[in-house]
């Protein structure tokens, strides 16, 4: 039996590919994170705005509202409900240059999902300070 650790960190995984959400939840739970997965863009934005999370994994291609739109809303300087979570873009989609530059300004980290195993993702997250 694996020892479940706890690090008291809350993480919101915004991901519409159910199986990926499942794998990430498993690895994150093992490392002590409390995980919630949401697959819908609008619902995800609402959940982000509760500001209950330490980390947000944000997929860019999700239904109803893109991850890029969510990022823009969360980092809008005029927002009345600032979010303190670190935002990590997790995507498999290559972005156009203009969007890449915007993401660089607004997100805290960026990764291509296909390049990491779930455990490597957990390691990566531990480096996001």
């Amino acid at each position, binding site marked *: 039996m694996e020892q479940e650790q706890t690090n008291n960190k809350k993480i919101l995984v915004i991901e519409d*590919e159910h*199986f*990926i959400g499942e*794998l*990430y939840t*498993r*690895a994150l739970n093992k490392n002590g994170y409390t995980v919630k997965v949401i697959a819908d863009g609008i619902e995800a934005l609402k959940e982000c705005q509760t500001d209950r999370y330490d980390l947000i994994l944000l997929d860019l*291609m999700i239904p109803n509202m893109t991850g890029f739109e969510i990022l823009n809303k969360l*980092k809008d300087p005029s927002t009345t409900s*600032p979010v*303190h979570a670190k935002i990590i873009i997790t995507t*498999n*989609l*290559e972005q*156009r*240059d203009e969007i*890449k530059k915007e993401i*660089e*300004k*607004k*997100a*805290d*980290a*960026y*990764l*291509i*999902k*296909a*390049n*990491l*195993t*779930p*455990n*490597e993702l957990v390691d*990566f997250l531990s*480096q*996001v300070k």
Partner: protein
Amino acid sequence: MDDFKKLARIYKNITFIFLILNLLIIFGSLYIESHFFNLSFYFSLALSGLMSVLFLTIIYIVLPKLFLKPLEILWYTILKLNPDSNSYFPKVDQDKLKVGKELVGNLIGQIYKIAIVANQDLMKVEQQKTDLSSEFLATRIPLPIFVLDNQETVKFVNKYGATYLGLEITDILGKNIYSILDLAFSSDDTLDNWLKEVKNKTAISIKSWERVKLNLQNNHPTLYFDMVAYYNLGNSQGYSLILTLFDHTKQYSEDDQAISFVAIAIHELRTPLTLLKGYIEVFSEELKDNLTPELSSFMEKMKATNDQLNLFVNNILNVARIDSDQMELKLTHQSWNSILSEAIDNISLRAKVRGINFETDIEQNLPEVGVDRISIQEVIYNLLDNAIKYSKDSKRIIIKSFLNKEGYVETTIQDFGRGIPENIMGKLFTKFYRDYHNRSQVGGTGLGLYISKAIIDAHQGNIWVKSKQNEGSTFGFTVLPFNLLSKDQKDLVNDEIVQNAHGWINNHSYYRR
């Protein structure tokens, strides 16, 4: 005159090709009809004649359109020269100007010169004080035109030029051309470099570029065009350079959309790759103590295979980026030792499953380099992947890295496999090139070296190969220590971004609340 000759040559070549095609159609169809359909000779002859007439009709329609287009632009231009003319001039679709760009550019330059002289005379006669440049012939040419003095200051721009950039003529006049046009060329053969060269050497010169990219401010879409420059030192008005733009935004941005298609396709490929990677990890973690040696080696092979597919997917994306000039590097301060060992680590499983050992001889304390970590690791992956693939029965690959005599960080990867025949060495770094003999024996696409060269070139490094057939090959490349980067390259360095093998982490704090 060279431009006329060029146009004539293109015309000759095309008509010759059509002639051959027509003959092929006649004889080919005759042959097919008589051998496969058993038609009578006269009937076959009539049918072939009919097909030939159809083909010639298509040529009859297409050829004049193609070759009369330059003439058409100039014809409208000359028509407009007549101040009494009130005729309606249809808009000329520049996209259809497939041949004779240099000729049109050159002739516009000549007409412009005549117009300057004509206007001087007009000024003398009429003593007009208004800016006559607005009456210049160039005002009426339906192509964006910029006239510069020898300091590259814009002396004149026609209304098409201003509209094209979404600016007013007054916003452009008197400004340095480079502050107005932020031009991006596909090679270092730029306007600036060409001008430096011709200014010292020649009095008159003409040059054209294809696929020039222009980024505009204020969320304007990117413009793409071909450009012709006409340089004339001896102009008494101090107008030394005329730039004419041929818009191809629609056509070239469709190429951009092609990369979006590639991006979507890659997204679809990466999703199952992500899942497989995850499941393999879960299985090896959970079953590691319960697997037989055979099953555990299968597990490793499965992981290595998944990684290989991932490298290939990334390669496709890189080729699409390189081919559409969208390869963007993010140079950062990096430790070469850490980059190299991380890359070797990540690919060592692929070597292990084939029983190959990496022997490393890496100088400690190599200087910090200025590189794009993810791209440069792709070079290492590709070179190591090739070394593994072409190792045949040999089980040794030697990786060395050291500071060479020129002060560059040099890395070599040596295998003892089948080697490369001398006659194909020169073509190795071209896209899809693979040794014919190896094609049937070794998988792969021939993209790796093409990508590696493009990435190393973009880092201002060198890449080369030494090889002897049946003895093996050594691939080597250099990257620059950070302090040797040129000023332009240092401007690209963004130390707020911390890269690692899996992505980047932003160091900035000012967006945080």
